[in-house]
Every structure is written in C-alpha cells, then in structure tokens.
C-alpha cells in the first residue's frame, strides 16, 4: 500500500472519528474506504490506537486516546446540538459552560426561561415537546436538572443540562412553555429537592406531603417511623 494511501486512510479515520462519516463514505476508492472503516471500527472497540492527527493544534489534542462512544443516532443528534450551540451563541453569548458538545449542552440556570422560550419558538429548531426531564445528584455538592428536548417537526433532539449547588438549588420553571414540565418538575422537586421558581403549585407529587428528606440524594437517610409505622426493614432474622 503506497505511502500517501496510508496517510489518506489516517486522515479519513480521523475525520470519521470526529463524527462526519459521510466524508469517509463519499471517498470513491472502494479499498481505501473499506480500510478506513475497518480501522474506525477497531479504534472504537479500543483495539487500535488512534493515528496521530496531521495538523496538531494544542487544544485540539485530547488527553489520551478518545474511545468515542459513536453510534448511528449520536451522529445525527450531534449535528443538532452543534447547530443549537451555534445559534445559542448568537442569542445568549455567555450562557454555555461546557466545551465539547457531543452529547449535551451545559447551561447556566439564570437565563434558562428565555432560552427555553426561544428554543420552542425558533422556527428553525422548534423543540415543541419536552421528552423527559430528570434530576440527578452528580457530586457531593452539585444537583443537575437535565432536559431532553425533541422536535416533532424536524425530528431532531438535544439534551440540555443545568447544574446548581445543593444549598440553593433554584432553577426557573419551564412549566409555562411545555405543559408536561409541570409534573416532571414536581417529581424532581419531590425526589431531589430542586426548587423551580415560578412553578404554579410546587409540592410533592409521589411521596406524602409530610415525608422528610429527598430520597434520591446520595446522602438520604430513611426516617424511623411514618405515622407510627416502622419504615426501615426492622424484622429480625431477615438479613
């Protein structure tokens, strides 16, 4: 195999790993294309090392080799979040916190309501259905609320994350935009204690109203009794 073909394959492989597979498929030489694809598959399985990038720019070389968790849907969605990020940067400049946008976009909580209305009203994005909103206790002091938005019209889909500290966990509520957020946010409040400002009636949805503690936090301790009924598994000889 000639020298430049090998270089060509390396270059195609790098492009393929960075997500635009169509460059690999568009290449007319069948043998080169097949070789590039097999190398990509091997790298994804972690057997082969990634070939060194031709133009080595300092910040682009990630630490160690990237085992990208690529799969078909991720490619399509990645272009969406890249598109959303590009448009977001014009409208709300300093709102985005994270750099690599392969799976999600990290946002700051304070301007979230305007971003959400804009995401829904923007004809080009038109995220009209909030698929799933969840809360997660990331580290010891960070609670995160994650939104999976989907557009019925363009059939594309993006994931947004908002991190708040545990002490004052306050996020503006998007109940007015997507009506489904009403109950999703009440459940996240019930499970993790993230307060949603502007929510019509924020109270516990699943647990009884006089239940103490937020169950899905990592440091949750069960309460001893509830209305005189012993809560923890106290039956002796069970363990």
């Amino acid at each position, binding site marked *: 195999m000639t020298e430049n073909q090998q270089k060509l394959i390396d270059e195609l492989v790098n492009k393929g790993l960075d997500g635009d597979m169509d460059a690999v498929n568009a290449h007319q030489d069948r043998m080169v294309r097949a070789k590039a694809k097999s190398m990509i598959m091997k790298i994804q399985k972690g057997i082969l090392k990634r070939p060194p990038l031709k133009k080595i720019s300092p910040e682009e070389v990630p630490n160690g080799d990237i085992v990208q968790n690529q799969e078909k849907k991720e490619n399509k969605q990645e272009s969406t979040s890249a598109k959303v990020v590009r448009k977001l940067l014009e409208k709300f400049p300093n709102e985005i916190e994270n750099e690599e946008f392969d799976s999600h976009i990290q946002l700051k909580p304070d301007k979230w309501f305007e971003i959400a209305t804009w995401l829904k009203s923007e004809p080009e994005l038109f995220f009209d259905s909030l698929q799933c909103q969840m809360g997660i206790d990331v580290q010891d002091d960070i609670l995160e609320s994650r939104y999976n938005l989907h557009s019925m019209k363009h059939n594309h889909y993006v994931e947004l994350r908002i991190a708040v500290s545990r002490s004052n966990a306050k996020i503006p509520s998007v109940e007015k935009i997507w009506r489904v957020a009403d109950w999703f946010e009440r459940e996240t409040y019930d499970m993790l204690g993230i307060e949603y400002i502007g929510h019509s009636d924020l109270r516990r949805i699943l*647990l*009884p109203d006089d239940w103490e503690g937020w*169950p899905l936090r990592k440091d949750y301790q*069960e309460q001893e009794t509830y209305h005189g*009924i012993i*809560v*923890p598994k106290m039956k002796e000889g069970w363990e």
Partner: protein
Amino acid sequence: MGLFTNKFQDNIIVEKLDKLLSWGRSTSPWFFQFGTACCAIEMMAAAASRHDLKRIGMIPRSSPRQADVMIVAGTVTMKMAIRVKKLYEQMADPKYVVAMGSCATSGGPYWQHGYHVLKGVDLVIPVDVYVPGCPPRPESLIEGLLKLQEQILEERPLTRKMA
C-alpha cells in the same frame, strides 16, 4: 353427637346453630376488590373466565360495606397503609384478610431499598391467610381462598359470643 342426630329420615340435618352459621359464612365470602399492583391483574384473571372465582362463591365487591374478605393484592406503600387501615376498619364485622403476593406479606422485592414500601401488611391489619408468589398464580390464590374457607368453617361464633 347431639341428642337428635339421625333420629329423622336421612335428608333432615340437625345441627347446632353455631355450625350452621359458620357453614353459611364459609361458603360465600364476598371479596373486597383491593388491588394495588401486579397481583391485582392476577386477581382479575382469577375472577375472570378461565379460573372462575364465582365457582367457590366469591363475588367481587367494590365497597367495604358489602365485603367479608379483603384480598390485599399488591404492594402497600406508606401513603396507602393509612388508607388500608381505615378501609379495614370500615368493613362489616365477620371480616377476614388475605395477603396476596409477597409484597403484601413482607414487602416483596422492595423490602431492601423501598423506603416508601410497607414491609408486610400485617404491620397494619391482622392477616388470616398469606398467599406467597410474585405474582401468585390464580390457582395458588384460589388454594389460599379455599384454606380461608376451611378456617371460617372451624369458627364457633356463638359460643365465643356467649363466653
């Protein structure tokens, strides 16, 4: 045996009122539809066409006032435990409880990490028959109910009342 037994022709039965009462109660205990979770679907399947509960005289009633047996079918959570206790109190008096499924017996698969799950319905109300299984098959539920009917047959309500 009693003074008058087999003094008359063969199809006349003379028995104590006690036995007559418990026999009457045991043959048709109406069950109180108290299905919370997956066991409720098996209870429905037991009451439906293939395994028919009406064969053993059990008619589904949806209000505690008209029911004799409360089949607790499914997981009882803390929020539901208060209601279970209230419903049990509101049942008319000769009342029995069948704890159907391992959730009602002991919290079932949710006993270890289920902070909101009641670890067994006998913490709240007295239970007569435990039917194991998750969910128990309709045949095992019917076997549990037959056991309950035997237990009702053994009761002597009047002598207890006199004593």
